[in-house]
């Protein structure tokens, strides 16, 4: 038996291809939306992986340092390093801000990393070009997504830094590229005020009668000095010794240091479950809307194609064609349309949409397979209206009168 659906598609291939193209662009957008969500999740995981930490020690009762501001003293890490099960502990600061470049400014997550070297928690795990930070001040390592190049000078607050190394896929959970600078510079940048503000603060402090104590010489100078310093960091990253349970180490820190500690699993839950939860819901809603629109389009197209063949269907039924052959004709056409749409969608999402999208778009093969299954299911479902009409066609319509 010949394939009636195949012959019909070959006969009117232009109609199918152009319809498939339109549907494909819609499917491409759907795939891209799923890819954006996957990209957001991957960004979050990469951020955690890149930190090289097993535990995040943050200000008590906060969700810091990524989901909520957190501030702890920068000498806490010394006490943590001496606790059982702790292999390494390092301060870290995060500040999302515009970084001045020769072309203007790029929004980046400026990360202050503690002195040490590659392998220290918080340091970028690998570089794609250049070298790690070796000086105590004014050197930076930037992610390639920032568009910065080796040797380029960047402006963070009032200081100029030289980009000495480049990383790849080191981004914040929001997709902003990371720029690593020495911890002291980052601490200063977090609290640094402009000259007018500093002068105004000193004047107000000097005029405060509480600090004008004749019996306490040097009090005013000490207070002024403390106001200009920043002894805080956002978190301490802790690496647990091999063979120790991170949860047990975290429990000990919580108990003795009275700080909040998150394990990798908990931090992932904060980033994915809380930080990008709203975006996930928005994307899911978009996916539902796109699926409904796609269904409506496929249903309309298959309905129109079937209505254009009512006389042929009547003839086919009159000459003894079984219902399942006619149902097969319509269903196969719907599936063919879905397949063309999926192929076009996959190509457009991979080659057209993902590369130009400003956020990281991660297209997983599993998502593509799921999308194909959903598209096929939608096409089958959408063809039911046309099938119903075809089955209701009276073979007598082929005979006049």
């Amino acid at each position, binding site marked *: 038996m010949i394939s009636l659906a195949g012959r019909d598609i070959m006969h009117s291939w232009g109609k199918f291809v152009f319809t498939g193209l339109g549907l494909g662009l819609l499917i491409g957008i759907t795939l891209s939306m799923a890819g954006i969500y996957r990209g957001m999740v991957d960004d979050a995981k990469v951020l955690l992986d890149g930190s090289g930490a097993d535990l995040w020690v943050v200000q008590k009762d906060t969700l810091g340092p990524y989901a909520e501001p957190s501030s702890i003293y920068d000498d806490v890490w010394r006490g943590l390093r001496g606790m059982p099960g702790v292999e390494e502990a390092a301060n870290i600061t995060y500040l999302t801000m515009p970084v001045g470049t020769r072309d203007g400014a790029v929004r980046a997550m400026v990360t202050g990393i503690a002195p040490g070297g590659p392998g220290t928690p918080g340091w970028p795990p690998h570089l794609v070009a250049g070298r790690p930070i070796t000086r105590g001040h004014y050197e930076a390592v930037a992610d390639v997504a920032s568009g910065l190049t080796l040797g380029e000078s960047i402006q963070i607050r009032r200081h100029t830094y030289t980009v000495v190394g480049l990383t790849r896929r080191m981004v914040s959970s929001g997709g902003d590229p990371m720029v690593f600078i020495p911890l002291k510079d980052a601490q200063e940048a977090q609290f640094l005020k402009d000259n007018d503000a500093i002068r105004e603060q000193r004047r107000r402090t000097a005029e405060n009668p509480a600090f004008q104590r004749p019996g306490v010489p040097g009090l005013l100078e000490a207070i002024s000095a403390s106001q200009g310093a920043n002894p805080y960091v956002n978190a301490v990253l802790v690496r647990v010794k091999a063979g120790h349970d991170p949860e047990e180490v975290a429990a000990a820190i919580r108990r003795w240091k009275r700080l909040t500690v998150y394990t990798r699993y908990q931090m992932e839950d904060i980033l994915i479950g809380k930080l990008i939860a709203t975006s996930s819901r928005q994307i899911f809603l978009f996916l539902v809307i796109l699926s409904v629109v796609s269904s409506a389009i496929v249903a309309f197209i298959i309905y129109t194609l079937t209505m254009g063949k009512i006389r042929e269907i009547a003839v086919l039924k009159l000459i003894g*064609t079984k219902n399942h052959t006619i149902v097969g004709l319509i269903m196969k056409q719907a599936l063919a349309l879905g397949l063309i749409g999926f192929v076009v969608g996959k190509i457009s999402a991979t080659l057209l949409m993902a590369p130009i999208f400003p956020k990281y778009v991660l297209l997983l093969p599993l998502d593509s397979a799921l999308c194909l299954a959903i598209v096929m299911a939608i096409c089958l479902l959408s063809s039911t209206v046309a099938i119903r009409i075809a089955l209701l066609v009276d073979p007598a319509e082929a*005979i*006049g*009168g």
Partner: protein
Amino acid sequence: MTPRGLRIQGLKKRYGSGDAAVDALKGVDMTVAPGEVVGLIGPSGSGKSTLLKCLGAVIEPTAGKMALGEDVIYDGEWKVKDLRALRRDRIGFVFQAPYLIPFLDVTDNVALLPMLAGVPNAEARHRATELLRALDVGHRAKAMPSQLSGGEQQRVAIARGLVNRPPIILADEPTAPLDSDRALAVIRILNDMARQFDTAIVVVTHDEKIIPTFKRIYHIRDGVTYEEAGQRRTP
């Protein structure tokens, strides 16, 4: 009554019920012998199409008897379980317009019927090609229906009606869209095929050009048939 061909006795068809009931056929009698082409003529609303639909097992008569060859197919109720198979294997249709399947080439338009009956593709195409040659359209075997002239399309439609070697062909105004020469050519073909394949053919027509070509004519008026011996002229 002939033992083969088509036999109809007292066939009735009523549409609706009660006061709205309409008797479209009020007791039709008709016999068509194998190899014979008979005309069925009548004005609009006379019951021609209803009779054709009953004969084609598309609608169910209300009463009467129909036999095809030695088999009674209707006697107060359908005596055949699978009406689709009956239409596919034992009744050929030729319509006013050819109604060829636009996405199948000429050969496959004809070969589709035996394929639907389970005949292997190669065998079905062989049968179709032979028949198309016999109908003088063999040279257009690979053409699509849209590439054929009206006369060629109608010959392909006749080939489709004949391909399963049905004992009866129902032709519904097959010459309506054709000019005189082509119309007569189609009737000549139907006569040739009836003789060649021993097929009984009923031609419903309004076409005065071809009416004289029938040996026997059934007039139908108000749901009743009257037989008239035709003054047969060679088409």
